[in-house]
């Protein structure tokens, strides 16, 4: 490149067509962390290492509900290589609990354990095995208490109270202290409307407990600092939320807890709650040494909250011509021993319980229970998933009763822009529900009996049961099923949801370079990719550096609720706009006298230059910035939302909605009850695809998690003891590449006028409808009712 030594702008104005900056939004640019990830250099939280570091280990309760009568740590302390053993008595501050919304979760159990796997004591030692053995030497005397495991046992008159003396802000309005939160939604008059119905369909549905099963285990490294504070490197979804919960328990001011995001190996909601963060800090502060904690897979199943299992009772009515008259439902979510995100899950489950349909008369109630089951909280789809499973099964049942095509019936009742939600909120951006259904339906079917290669023997790999060679096609039947769902984007119900971005623009080695600094957790979703794309688009530069995410910049909010591209993407966009304005100001000051367009024209930054909207180049950005540096930090908020009324459920509670539809094609071996999903097609509206490669990747990933819960995924909790029976990848199954079918994706881009670039959050929607679509397909193949996830072979063979 030629040396540039200009003091004046890039020569005289020229008539060039507008320059495009490569790698901007709308392009499928590649991940900036891709190379590090394929070479093994990317440091995940479990890869952290420090000289002299110790290993932390948690001792967890072996029973679900008990009084702790005594803890004896003497043998553990005496073991060579052990540096510290901590129990509740060692907690340094008055604050002993934490929690996302309700601070009901003890850092270490005090007096009582409320679920299997609750942390009771901590050990730090010089080898992980020493730490494990020392933890095993801690003696705890439990006096077991009766367990509360379901609605009946939780709400019985003499039910043990999971949290006695509750004083949280939901305690006042719940009908029973074992109910975390209750949200009714009443609109119109469902009983009156039911009289107009020609058919009424009722159903009871059960949704099993799903695990996020991210691959990178909970882990991190806490390093004690000289100022008495601590530096924490950790995989999380929201650094600032962690910080808010960690600092009070450590008895430190927030500025003495410095958090840096380390590599995150997937999250899906499972890292919204604290896991090992506080424990590692406590051990580091106590021993004065860096402490690393890495859960193994067994512990990981106890270390994070799961998706709420749910029981859903639905009633729908419809007229003969296929119009829904009313809907009544009751959704009971099992929140387990601690609140976590249960209140918000209740809000979502209730407000999205009708699905993407127009029903004017509804009677809805959703509750979350406190029980002695494992705590449940956030997981991809967040309350909307359970509801979608039930209302989509209902849609098929009503259509069948009316003798209508299930897709046409849905289309007839589909919401559209301008429709009213059961909460009274108007859907004020595109809602292409009927169109999404049309698209998946119009797609050509995969060939029948794919296992038969023309004229040859069956390729068993394509059959249910696969390589197990359980069938050669006899007894195998095909079914097709459809489903569609609606998910909200961002944090709802009046939450002050914001994100912060800092952007610096300067000249480095003669080239303008933008640095984007946010606290956004990159959990694999690709935020770092789109942030660079946004900065390139807004600032017209090629070089963008993404600063590591840490707590030295304002909060970015959580990487969840499909909100990060909207929120932190929006923050980066807004901040870049402010930076651009400053750059143009500098340009005007320096070069304004050279050309009238500086004062009169609409100016843009493109391809490293300042151009007019007519495409005339006024100056090189590098020349404008030479010697100056622009640094701006701004917060971005979405439009405000309101809390739902506690009696009627009315309120403009949500920011934005997002929609996806699926068509599932399955083949079922009816003799053995084995299912092969042959194809799972998605159509989704993403508003605007900032990076199509990532968009499709997210849709396929979300679709697969929905497939998992349809046919294999469930944490099994013993109903008598509330103990988890399958905390391992041997017993908790997630789909392998052999379980996962071809997944064609059809992306629609109908801009939301209220969102940055018109985009729609997209990560969760595909998880919703994939489960009911697969279930519908299995029902179509077998003729069975199947009201429970996951479908297991015994459900199909009646054994």
């Amino acid at each position: 490149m030629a040396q540039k030594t200009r003091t004046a702008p890039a020569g005289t104005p020229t008539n060039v067509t507008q320059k495009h900056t490569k790698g901007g939004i709308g392009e499928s640019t590649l991940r900036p962390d891709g190379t590090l990830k394929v070479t093994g250099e990317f440091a995940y939280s479990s890869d952290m290492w420090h000289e002299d570091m110790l290993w932390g280990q948690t001792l967890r309760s072996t029973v679900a509900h008990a009084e702790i009568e005594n803890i004896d740590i003497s043998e553990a302390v005496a073991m060579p290589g052990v540096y510290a053993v901590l129990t509740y008595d060692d907690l340094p501050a008055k604050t002993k609990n934490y929690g996302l919304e309700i601070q009901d979760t003890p850092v270490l159990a005090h007096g009582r354990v409320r679920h299997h796997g609750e942390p009771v004591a901590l050990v730090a030692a010089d080898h992980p095995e020493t730490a494990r053995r020392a933890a095993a030497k801690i003696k705890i005397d439990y006096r077991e208490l009766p367990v509360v495991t379901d609605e009946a046992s939780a709400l019985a008159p003499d039910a043990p109270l999971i949290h006695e003396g509750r004083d949280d802000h939901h305690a006042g309005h719940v009908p029973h202290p074992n109910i975390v939160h209750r949200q009714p939604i009443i609109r119109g008059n469902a009983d009156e409307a039911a009289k107009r119905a020609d058919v009424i369909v009722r159903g009871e549905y059960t949704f099993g407990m799903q695990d996020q099963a991210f691959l990178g285990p909970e882990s991190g490294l806490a390093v004690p600092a000289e100022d008495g504070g601590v530096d924490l490197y950790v995989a999380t979804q929201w650094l600032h939320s962690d910080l808010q919960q960690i600092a009070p328990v450590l008895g430190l001011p927030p500025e003495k807890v410095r958090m840096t995001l380390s590599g995150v190996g997937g999250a899906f909601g499972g890292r919204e709650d604290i896991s090992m963060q506080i424990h590692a800090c406590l051990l580091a502060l106590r021993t004065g040494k860096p402490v690393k904690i890495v859960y193994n897979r067994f512990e990981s199943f106890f270390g994070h909250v799961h998706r709420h299992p749910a029981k859903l009772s639905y009633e729908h009515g419809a007229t003969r011509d296929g119009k829904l008259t009313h809907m009544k439902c009751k959704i009971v979510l099992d929140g387990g021993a601690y609140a976590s995100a249960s209140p918000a899950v209740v809000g979502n489950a209730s407000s999205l319980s009708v699905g993407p349909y127009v029903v004017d008369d509804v009677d809805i109630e959703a509750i979350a229970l406190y029980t002695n089951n494992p705590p449940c909280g956030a997981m991809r789809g967040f309350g909307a998933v359970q509801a979608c499973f039930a209302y989509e099964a209902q849609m098929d049942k009503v259509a069948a009763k009316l003798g209508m095509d299930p897709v046409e019936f849905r289309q007839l009742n589909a919401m559209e822009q301008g429709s009213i939600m059961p909460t009274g909120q108007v859907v004020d951006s595109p809602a292409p529900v009927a169109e999404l259904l049309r698209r998946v339906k119009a797609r050509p079917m995969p060939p029948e009996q794919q296992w038969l290669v023309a004229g040859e023997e069956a390729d068993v790999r394509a059959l249910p049961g696969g390589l197990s060679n359980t069938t050669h096609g006899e007894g195998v039947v095909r079914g097709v099923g459809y489903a569609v769902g609606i998910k909200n984007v961002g944090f709802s119900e009046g939450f002050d949801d914001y994100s912060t971005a800092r952007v610096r623009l300067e000249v480095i080695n003669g080239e303008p370079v933008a640095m984007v600094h946010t606290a956004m957790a990159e959990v694999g979703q690709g935020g770092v990719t789109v942030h660079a794309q946004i900065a390139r688009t807004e600032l017209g530069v090629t070089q963008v550096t993404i600063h590591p995410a840490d707590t030295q910049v304002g909060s970015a909010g959580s990487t969840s609720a499909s909100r990060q591209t909207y929120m932190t993407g929006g923050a980066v966009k807004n901040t870049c706009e402010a930076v651009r304005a400053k750059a143009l100001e500098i340009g005007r000051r320096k070069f304004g006298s050279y050309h009238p367009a500086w004062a009169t024209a609409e100016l843009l930054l493109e391809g490293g230059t300042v151009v007019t909207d007519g495409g005339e180049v006024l100056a090189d950005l590098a020349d404008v910035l030479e010697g100056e540096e622009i640094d701006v930090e701004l917060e971005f908020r979405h439009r405000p939302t309101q809390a739902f009324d506690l009696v009627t459920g009315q309120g403009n509670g949500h920011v934005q909605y997002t929609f996806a539809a699926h068509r599932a094609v399955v083949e079922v071996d009816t003799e053995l009850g084995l299912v092969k999903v042959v194809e799972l097609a998605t159509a989704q509206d993403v508003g605007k695809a900032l990076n199509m490669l990532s968009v499709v990747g997210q849709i396929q990933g979300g679709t697969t998690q929905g497939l998992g819960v349809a046919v294999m995924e469930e944490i099994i909790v013993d109903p008598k003891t509330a103990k988890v029976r399958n905390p391992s990848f041997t017993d908790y199954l997630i789909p392998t590449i052999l379980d996962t079918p071809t997944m064609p994706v059809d992306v629609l881009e109908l801009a939301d006028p209220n969102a940055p670039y018109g985009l729609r959050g997209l990560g969760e929607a595909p998880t919703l409808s994939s489960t009911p679509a697969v279930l519908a397909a299995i029902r179509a193949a077998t003729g069975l009712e199947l009201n429970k996830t996951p479908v297991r072979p015994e459900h199909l063979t009646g054994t």
Partner: protein
Amino acid sequence: MRVNFTVNGRKQEADDVWEGESLLYVLRERMGLPGSKNACEQGECGSCTVRLDGVPVCSCLVAAGQVEGREVVTVEGLADYAAHRTDAHPGAGCASGACGTSLDAAKQWQALPSNSGLRPRAQGSQTGEAGGLAPIQQAFIDAGAVQCGFCTPGLLVAADELLERNPEPSDADIREALSGNLCRCTGYEKILDAVRLAAARQEEAV
């Protein structure tokens, strides 16, 4: 116990290894090679896949003592391994020894305050940087097969071995070969794309 073995073409020795330690632990915590991942440590997910004398294994299931005198290739050595595929011995491509990490160098790894959470590489890294990426590594990036990337190292080692054995795999072959590697993020479609892409490029190059 002391274990002597070859990692990515370089002789290594690990001291004071406890008998219960896995090859995965020794690689990650003693050799400073954390590329092989610890997702389940029970042989179920394949994230820790390495090649042991050329054969893909779950390193979490291999006791450290079992590798005495043997050759291990990890994702860190994959590019170099692929570049020297014609050599007789796995990992022997680095005859110069220039692509190994010395134990001393490995020990310099640490988390630095204010860094990106990316721990600095040991000097003389084994990433194959000199030779760029293996075709399968590049294909994973290009096809969008990397999201969180935790499954990626194991998948790369397994996929590379598949392409070595079977340069033109069918989709069913790919699915079969990668069925021991879990990925929770991608839904596998793009992983299939990546393997197809690498195979196609390989063919083009011949």
